[in-house]
């Protein structure tokens, strides 16, 4: 992988970290608040279904996580197992795409 791509991946990791920092604070606060009196599916879905703003928020959250997590895994796999090169890049790309699709599906299930 050339230096320019390495720099782009580094920037992507930091930029998504900044987005995730905001998203996680919102996620933690709403989660702790929502779980005060226990959870039922009807209670959750009654609040969330059809909420476009929260759906958009969680799509951004998922997109950032789908970039950030595979890049972190790439570093760990390269440093721990000395796995490098095209096979690692392909594996990480597949992981990122899978997380994006699964995450978008989960957001749709709750907010769609």
């Amino acid at each position, binding site marked *: 992988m050339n230096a320019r791509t390495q720099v782009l991946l580094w920037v992507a990791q*930091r930029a998504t*970290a*900044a987005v*995730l*920092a905001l998203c*996680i*604070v919102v996620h*933690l606060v709403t*989660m*702790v*608040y929502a*779980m*005060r009196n226990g*959870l*039922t*599916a*009807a209670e*959750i*879905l009654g609040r969330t279904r059809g909420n476009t703003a929260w759906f958009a928020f969680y799509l951004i959250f998922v997109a950032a*996580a789908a970039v950030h*997590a*595979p890049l*972190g*895994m790439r570093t*760990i796999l390269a440093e721990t197992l000395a796995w490098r090169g095209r096979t690692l890049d392909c594996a990480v790309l597949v992981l990122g795409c*899978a*997380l994006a699709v*699964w*995450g978008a*599906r*989960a*957001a*749709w*299930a*709750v907010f769609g």
Partner: protein
Amino acid sequence: MRSNDFRARSHPAYWAFIVHRLSGLLLALFLPFHFWALGQALNGAASLDAFLHWTEQPFVKFAETGLVLLLAAHLTGGVRLLMLEFLAWRDWQKTLLALSAGISLAVGLAFALNVV
């Protein structure tokens, strides 16, 4: 192990690195399960309720609290790294480490004890 390795590994920043790496790894492994669980809502409220009922077990509650702690630790550790890289606050490293640990613990306890 060389003496330099030992000194490096006894430094708080090394343990911050280990916590950040381990929490990131565990969170990345957890994400697919989290998405699968939320996806249960596609099969209707009853399916999601069955899953939520399963999560009432003590060991799942314990694991949930651990996950919240991991998320808070990765968040605060990540913010610390961003500050070190972009804000040149290097003299404040230990303060940031202590803040990271304290905030993570507070969030984990807030979740575990339902104090909010």
